[in-house]
């Protein structure tokens, strides 16, 4: 409760709350801690029993096998390729569409915007089977096109974020520019776009995390190992016959590292978007 009244509880209750919070922190951070520790402890430490809860040695052998045997760098590069086009396409197209929904008046606007909102909630498996049939027919299997092209047509959640932000920009800005002879495209590119830094950062952070972690779509569309993305590559290191847990820990640690860094540096934008979506919806 945010009430000031709760700030002045009995000391024993405060202590209990601190203990609880510490336990929660440890529970949530421990798996991440564990993967980092196991990645730098060398292959011997993987199934050592009892396990060293604190790192006992430093060895980069796990990383060597992750890069050497499993071509982790290739998967990194593939993810980056998709990333560039996904970030560009999703943010640009969604900002344009968001502007249309925020500023233009046309028949069916509210109904269409409701469709945008509803499609945020459409389950993945309901749209992936139809899309899989379509992209197979187009010959897009084993290309990055299924992971990139749809994003250039606006991403519902990002359209929503841009639209919400643009409605908060005073409409007088648009009007005075139109009176000065600016076209709508001119208003968008010269007046609105320069003001959209906060939603752009929110959308880029989201999209970065989404593409970086996207696993099920690459799993369905990419089945040549040379095309694997980072998370798909990690999944395919799992095998029923033999698992190199050391390499897996190293690869997992690296794959966790980047989103975690981005998250800690830019978390206010991530939370901002989330809260916006939750309260305004």
């Amino acid at each position, binding site marked *: 409760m*945010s009430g000031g009244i709760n700030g002045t509880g009995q000391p024993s209750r405060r202590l209990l709350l601190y203990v609880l919070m510490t336990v929660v922190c440890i529970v949530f*951070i421990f798996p991440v801690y564990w993967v980092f520790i196991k990645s730098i402890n060398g292959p011997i430490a993987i*199934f050592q029993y009892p396990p060293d809860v604190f790192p006992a040695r430093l060895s980069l052998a796990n990383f060597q096998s992750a890069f050497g045997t499993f071509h982790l760098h290739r998967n990194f590069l593939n993810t980056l390729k998709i990333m560039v086009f996904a970030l560009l396409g999703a943010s640009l197209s969604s900002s344009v569409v968001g502007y249309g929904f925020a500023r233009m008046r046309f028949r069916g606007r509210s109904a269409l915007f409701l469709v945008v909102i509803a499609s945020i909630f459409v389950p993945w498996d309901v749209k992936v089977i139809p899309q899989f049939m379509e992209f197979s027919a187009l010959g897009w299997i084993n290309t990055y096109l299924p992971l990139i092209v749809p994003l250039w047509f606006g991403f519902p959640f990002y359209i929503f974020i841009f639209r919400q932000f643009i409605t908060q920009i005073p409409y007088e800005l648009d009007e005075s520019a139109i009176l000065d002879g600016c076209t709508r495209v001119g208003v968008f590119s010269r007046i609105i776009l320069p003001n959209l830094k906060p939603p752009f950062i929110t959308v880029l952070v989201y999209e970065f995390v989404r593409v970086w972690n996207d696993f099920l779509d690459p799993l369905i569309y990419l089945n040549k190992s040379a095309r694997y993305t980072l998370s798909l590559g990690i999944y395919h290191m799992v095998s029923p016959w033999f698992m190199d847990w050391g390499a897996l820990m190293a690869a997992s640690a690296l794959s966790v590292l980047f989103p975690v860094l981005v998250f800690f540096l830019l978390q206010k934008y991530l939370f901002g978007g989330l809260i916006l979506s939750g309260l305004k919806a």
Partner: protein
Amino acid sequence: MRQIGATARERLSGYLFISPWLIGFVVFYAGPMLFSFAVSFTNWDFFKNMTFVGLRNYFRIFSPGEDALAGLRKTLLFVVLEVPLQMVCSLAIAQLLTEKLRGANVARSLVYLPAVISGPAGGLIWRYMFNTQTGIFNYVLSFFNVKPIPWIEDPRIALFSIIGTGLWAVGQPMILFLAALQGVPTVFYEAAEVDGASRWRRFFSITLPMISPTILLNVVIIMINQFQVLAPLLVITSGGPAKATYLYSFVEYNNAFKFLKMGYASALSWFMFLIMLVVTLLLFRSSRRWVYSESGRGDIL
């Protein structure tokens, strides 16, 4: 301010601005989904000619001995357990973090952290920790003289272990709850305390009704996500042991992308969509009774 009547020119440019989404929606969503709805009444598998089979694919979901029916039962059990657990966990943590504690911001970040970790990386960490002989869980339990538990090797336990891993990823609902809790006006609590209401009483009589719109939103989001849970099953248990974690979504995935039975898989996905739609609509309908809204209308969209 804005003029009342929109000019034809403005209307046209409106459609132009939203045209990327409109085209994408027709080409990548609505079109393929209609196609898949049609395919769900055929036996299409990419190779054979498409033959109309009526409702046979839908009947097949319920035929005894089919993985789909068994998977559906497990999925329902999973959802019935996972949704309340995630709701209680995320709300409890959010409530804890609104107490003015030092370091609450750090705790908030740490709790959200798993949400930015990929399915394979996160799943593998759990799989590693679940190891019966050398995993950390059984190591810690050994201090309390608990015999090693076969977390993901015993068919009776595996599904519950997966449910446990889901509680790690409550960052998103927790953040929404946190924002909602911080939005409850403090005067309500102050007035209640003056009247001598206990902490629990204040929680149930003020907090819960005030955050009920967020409760509804979180229930819907979590439920939709849990009905289609797939990544942890693929990564942690591969559907096993003895099909104990071969949930409906996994059956659907295998039929669609392993066996390429597009007709049956389409029927499976449309049936699941129907279930989710019905449950969501029921939730929204019932929400008029339990969701508080300042405008007096029980709608959140």
